């Protein structure tokens, strides 16, 4: 019983912005082992956003993800801190890809560990929705023309709705 209190009381969070492709399952596996919370977490809710090869009816060949270095990290930290104030969380992991991407590349990973599932479910969605609507990232797609030969670049103008 006393034993509960000998545990780390501080929560940890990791935010990564990366130009390199990442494997979400590998990241989750490593992070969960490394966080050293065995027996403490009863719930992990996570979300992975992956690049599709179609958007708004067009075939998408590639994408460039631009961001605002500095503000991105600052804003993501704010989102995660807001989530921690609202829910009882153990650990959080956010990874976002930038630079050149191809279809099927993971774009974003948001993962939350907590004792009970309500907190993990709600916080992971909250972080993801805030990231989508406010974190300074912009997508430019290379879209295949109707002749299937030419290609044009276009900035993505709107996100699909999350609620």
């Amino acid at each position, binding site marked *: 019983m006393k034993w509960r209190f000998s545990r780390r009381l501080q929560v940890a969070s990791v935010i990564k912005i990366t130009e390199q492709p990442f494997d979400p399952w590998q990241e989750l596996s490593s992070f969960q082992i490394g966080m050293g919370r065995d027996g403490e977490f009863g719930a992990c809710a996570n979300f992975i956003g992956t690049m599709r090869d179609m958007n708004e009816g067009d075939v998408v060949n590639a994408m460039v993800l631009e*961001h605002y270095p500095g*503000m991105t990290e600052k*804003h993501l930290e704010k989102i995660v801190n807001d989530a921690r104030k609202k829910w009882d969380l153990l650990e959080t992991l956010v990874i976002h890809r930038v630079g050149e991407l191809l279809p099927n590349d993971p774009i974003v990973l948001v993962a939350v560990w907590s004792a009970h599932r309500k907190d993990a479910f709600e916080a992971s969605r909250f972080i993801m929705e805030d990231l989508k*609507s406010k974190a300074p990232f*912009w997508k430019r797609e290379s879209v295949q023309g109707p002749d299937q030969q030419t290609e044009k670049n276009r900035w993505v103008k709107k996100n699909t709705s999350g609620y």
Partner: protein
Amino acid sequence: MTQTKAEKAMSIKVLYFASLRERLGCSEELISEDGLSTVGDVWQRVSDGKNVTQRVLYSINQEYAQADSLVKAGDEVAFFPPVTGG
């Protein structure tokens, strides 16, 4: 551009991103703070005559700001379109 330390201290650093960066043909510039009190003033000056019709968001020192948020010399101001990450 090459500025002296003194010039930089009296300037506001302005960044542009994504489609707005392309539209304005500029990613970063230093402007004099003379006569600028709000981020809206900064936007007025840098977009003057550029006919920007898209929606533009503002930030000051990497935090979201409103048109009437105050700016001062040494600030980093950014203008960008609605975000589309995730």
